[in-house]
Structures are given as C-alpha cells and as structure tokens.
C-alpha cells in the first residue's frame, strides 16, 4: 500500500441537531481512487466537503500529509474539487476558467498558457480556449471543470457526483476518462456517488456509507462478493437476502432446506441473513433443485434475462443468459461458495452500527 495521505480522525458533524457523521474514521492513501458510496443523506457529500474545507467538523481532526488541516480554509488546502453542477464561471472564457487558480498563485503567462493547452488536451477538448461556457454540453462543461481543477496540480482531486447530471452513454465514457486521467496524473481521487456501478467500475477502494456510519471499506471485489451486512449487500447490486438459521459451521437452513456453505464461526442455531447474488442461482429441472417453484416473470435485459421464481414462499431473483418460459416449473441450485452468510442486525437501528474496517 502507498503512503497514507489523508486521515479522518473521530469526525462528527451535525446540523440543527441532526447527526450527519458520527465518529468517522477513514484513511486515504496516495494515488488511490477512493469512492464514498451510499444513498442520499448517508454523509458522503459532507465527508467530501469536510476534506475540501467547506465545512468544519464539530469534533475530530483531518490530517493531510502529516499536518492538521482541520481549521484551514479551502483556499489554503492543496486539493481541488470538481463540483456536481460543474460550477464554472459563466462570465469567463474556457481559458480564463482554467487559468483562474494559476493566476491566483501568480504563475507566469507562458506557464499558464502551456498549462491550459496541456489540460485541454488531457480532457480531449483541444482548441476550446476561447469558447464560452454556455456553448458547451454538460459533458464538456464537466471536462472543463476537471481541467480547471487539475492544472493546479493538487495532491488530491475531490469529485462530488461529477457524472450525476450526464446521460448514461456519456456517464460510461466519462468513467473510463476518469480512470485514464487518474493513471496519467498519479494523484489521489476521492469520488462521491450513489451509483454503485460507477463505484465498482472506477475505484481502488469503496467506502460504503449509510446514515453517517461507514458500513464497509474494501476493494470493489470485496464489497461485491463479501458484503459484511444486508445493507451493503442490498445496496451493491441486486441480491436475494433471505432469513436463515445457521445450523452449525458450513451448514445453513433457508426456507426449511439445509444448504451447505463455506462460512464458519457464526455459532449454532443462530438467525442470520443469507445473501445469494442473482447470477449465482442456477435454474435446474424441479427434481434437481434445492428449491422448487414457478417462473413468474422473465425480462430481457440485453446481456441476460432477469427471471423471477416463486419458490418455497420467496420471490427469487435470477440472472441467466438462458431463456426460460414464464409459468414453467423449475428447481433452483446454488454452489456452497456463492452463499454469503451475514450476522442479522439485532434491531432495525443495527444497520447503522459502525463496522470496524
């Protein structure tokens, strides 16, 4: 792992008595693409604004490159932000927008001109210097916002749902652009989104947040394959989350059927949440399945069919590339490795409980 760049220590923040963040701890490394992922109101944007300096925490410290920057205003922090709605200066040309930060730091005219050229090339908008902001599309404006931020050579780029306002195709293109940019620049990206697909595509590390608490920190693979609780499993991708009883190590009872699994250490006869990803369920003839039921709906999704099967009183979601007819009697199987066991929250509040990472 690379050197630690940013440390959030015991950060708490509340507005009007509403707790937004509670005792948040987060470490971000150099040259890391970190995504803060969660539903709206989970505190991800507040976390980003704290790092950017637009908010100050009620308690806790922000350490940047070894120095405490908690009280430092945004204009003295060595990082730059790409805002959700671009926040370009409409009364200036593209070149003037990009030059804004450089002029403030007193760079020479030649240096600035070179930087503008370089930045526009980097975001594939060469020759746009004299254009007005209004003449650009949303995607182009967002590229300019990125160019405006990176010319200042920040150690960290903060991105607040930068693709939220773009259409699907543009969003996908920009995802690859951002990955390329990050690799070329070799700086840390801290990215905020509620879009799990964006997070999985781009990140080195995903921080899943809910209601002011970090639920899980891990690589996209970790988060997807080994969600630590039902919230993460539900939020990342589609999931079948079923009540189960852990009979003993490597054996779980789901809907009165005992299944082999690979998880251990949950004790015996403990209620648990069982997560099975839709693509891990295999449709078989009825006699060969762990569960038997009827196909209730089949939707073509392009790459796969999304099939719902009502079996043993549960509506199962299955992704498969094979076509099956609605109304058909089928069985469902799953290999032990693809069964994910998670501790049940003791109350509904438990979903907020912080997971030590």
């Amino acid at each position, binding site marked *: 792992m690379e050197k630690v760049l940013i440390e959030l220590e015991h950060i708490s923040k509340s507005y009007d008595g509403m707790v937004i963040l509670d005792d948040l701890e987060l470490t971000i490394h150099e040259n890391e693409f970190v995504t803060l992922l969660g539903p709206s109101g989970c505190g991800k944007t507040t976390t980003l604004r704290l790092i950017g300096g637009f908010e100050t925490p009620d308690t806790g410290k922000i350490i940047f490159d070894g120095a405490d920057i908690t009280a430092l205003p*945004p*204009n003295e922090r060595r990082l*730059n932000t790409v805002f959700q709605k671009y*926040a370009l*200066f409409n009364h200036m*040309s593209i070149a*003037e927008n990009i030059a804004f930060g450089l*002029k*403030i730091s007193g760079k020479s005219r030649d240096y600035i001109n070179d930087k503008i050229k370089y930045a526009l090339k980097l975001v594939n908008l060469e020759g746009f210097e004299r254009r007005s902001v209004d003449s650009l599309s949303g995607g182009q404006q967002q590229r300019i916002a990125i160019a*405006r931020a990176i010319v200042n050579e920040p150690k960290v780029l903060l991105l607040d749902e930068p693709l939220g306002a773009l259409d699907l195709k543009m969003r996908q293109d920009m995802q690859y652009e951002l990955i390329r940019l990050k690799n070329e620049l070799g700086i840390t990206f801290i990215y905020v989104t509620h879009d799990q697909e964006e997070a999985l595509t781009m990140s080195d590390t995903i921080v899943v947040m809910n209601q002011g608490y970090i639920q899980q920190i891990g690589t996209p693979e970790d988060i997807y394959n080994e969600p630590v609780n039902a919230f993460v499993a539900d939020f990342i991708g589609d999931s079948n989350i079923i009540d189960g009883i852990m009979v003993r190590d490597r054996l779980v009872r789901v809907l009165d059927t005992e299944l082999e699994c690979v998880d251990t250490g949950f004790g015996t006869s403990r209620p648990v949440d069982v997560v099975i990803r839709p693509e891990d369920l295999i449709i078989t003839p009825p006699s060969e399945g762990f569960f038997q039921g009827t196909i209730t709906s089949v939707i073509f999704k392009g790459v796969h069919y999304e099939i719902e099967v009502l079996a043993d009183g549960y509506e199962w979601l299955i992704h498969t590339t094979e076509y099956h007819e609605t109304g058909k009697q089928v069985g469902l199987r799953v290999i032990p490795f693809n069964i994910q066991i998670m501790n049940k929250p003791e109350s509904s509040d438990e979903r907020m409980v912080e997971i030590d990472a």
Partner: protein
Amino acid sequence: MKGWWRLMRKYGKQLLSGPYLVWMIGFILLPLLLVVYYAFTNSAGSFTTANIISIFHKVHMKALWLSIKIALQCTVICLLLSYPLAMILNKLSLSRQNFIVFLFVLPMWMNSMLRILAWQLLLSNNGIINAILDFLHLPNISILNTPTAVVFGMVYDFLPYMILPIYNSMARIRKDIVEAAQDLGAKNHTIFIKIILPLTLPGVMSGIIMVFVPALTSFVISNLLGGGKVLLIGNIIEADFMQFFNWNLGAGLSLVLMVFVIASMAVMNNYSGETEGTAVW
C-alpha cells in the same frame, strides 16, 4: 359557421393581440408623434428647429446640467446604499431576506406624491425633525428647498429600484460558484472582484438605469422639496406646458431629453454587454 371557426383558428391568436396593438398605437406611438410634431413647429404651425436649439439657451443648459448632477448624485448614493445591503441580505436566511426586502419595498405601496409631501413636512424648518433636534439640543437643519433635499427625496423614492435588481443578481449566484473560487485558492477580495462583481454587473446596470432615468426627468420631487428654487429640466418642461402654454417649446425640450436618455442607456447597455461577455482580468 364552419368558416367562422376556421377563421378563428387561423387568426384567433392575432385577434387576442388586438387590444395591445390599439394601446400601443393610441397611447405610445401617437403621443410620441405628437411630441415630435409640436417639437418641430411653432405656434403658427410652420416648421422650425428653434424649439430643439433652445436647449442651448443658458437657463435650459443650467437646468439640464443641474438635473444630470442631481440624478448622478442620487444614482451614486442609491448604489452605495444598495450594494452592501444586497451583500448583507445574501448572507441571511431566506425568510429574513424576504422580510427585509419586503420592508424596503413596502413604501412603494404608497403614492409617491404622498411620501414626498410627508418629507416636505418632516424636513420643514419647524417640522418634526427639527423639533426632535431641538429637544435633543442639537443644531437645527434647514435643507428644505435646497438641492440636498431634492437628492434626499429622490434617493428615498428610487432606492427600491436599485436594491431589487442588485439583490436579484446577487441571489442568483450559486453557492458552489463561490466555493469553486475558494477551492482554486481565491481569498475573499479576489472572489469579490473576479466573481461577485462581474456577475452582479448586469443587476447594477439595470439598477442604474432604473434610478438615473426617473431621477433625471422628475419634476414632482424638485417641486415639493425644492420649493421652486431647484429648477430641473423636468420643471422647465412642466412650466412650458402648464404655465406658459408653450407646447412647442415643451415638446422640443422633452424630445431632447428623451434622446439624451436613450443615448445614455445605449452607452450603459453597451458597456454592461461587453463586461458580461469577457472577464475583467
């Protein structure tokens, strides 16, 4: 019947604009043409440019110059009062903003003549203000019937027209624009000069026009608070029409004033247009 419907469908929308057309012709275009007609004729009805030329008459020039001076003073004072107020307002919560803007606009609900008459009483030598000053053993003021009183009245009367456009343009600046400037390293004074000022300039310009033009052409305020001693171009035009019944001269001077106003507006519009397009680095 069918044909009538077809006609209605085809010309219905144009028919709706009919009343406006009548209004514009009857109450804007026709009076304007009459002004031009009177301006270029003498009392006998024959063509002359004397009415126009007479703007260069010493009395008229003096009045025009005084009008410009007072209108400029009034505009500058309004601007100096409004801009900081708009900035303060912008920092408050929305409900407070609305309340304070409401307070400033409230006097506009009253007839302006009444308000000016009230100031006449307040400012008079044995008026309420001097009574209060007496009570506090402070020296009296006697500004009624001076240009100062006229400027004062104009500022009082026209201030909302300056506040509203500036406040509007300032409220339209999104918070993330300011944050972006901060993020790029700008300190408060840089943000003000490079971001806030250029983005509020259109509001400032329309505020200037909305205050300067009525201040330049007003005659009621100078009548009531100037006591006939402060002779503005508006007062002279009024006197030409109402006292000397010299419609031709009055129309001639009105036309000159109108051209002057249009020209100054064009200059300002041009200026604000330029600064909006390109930055003021």
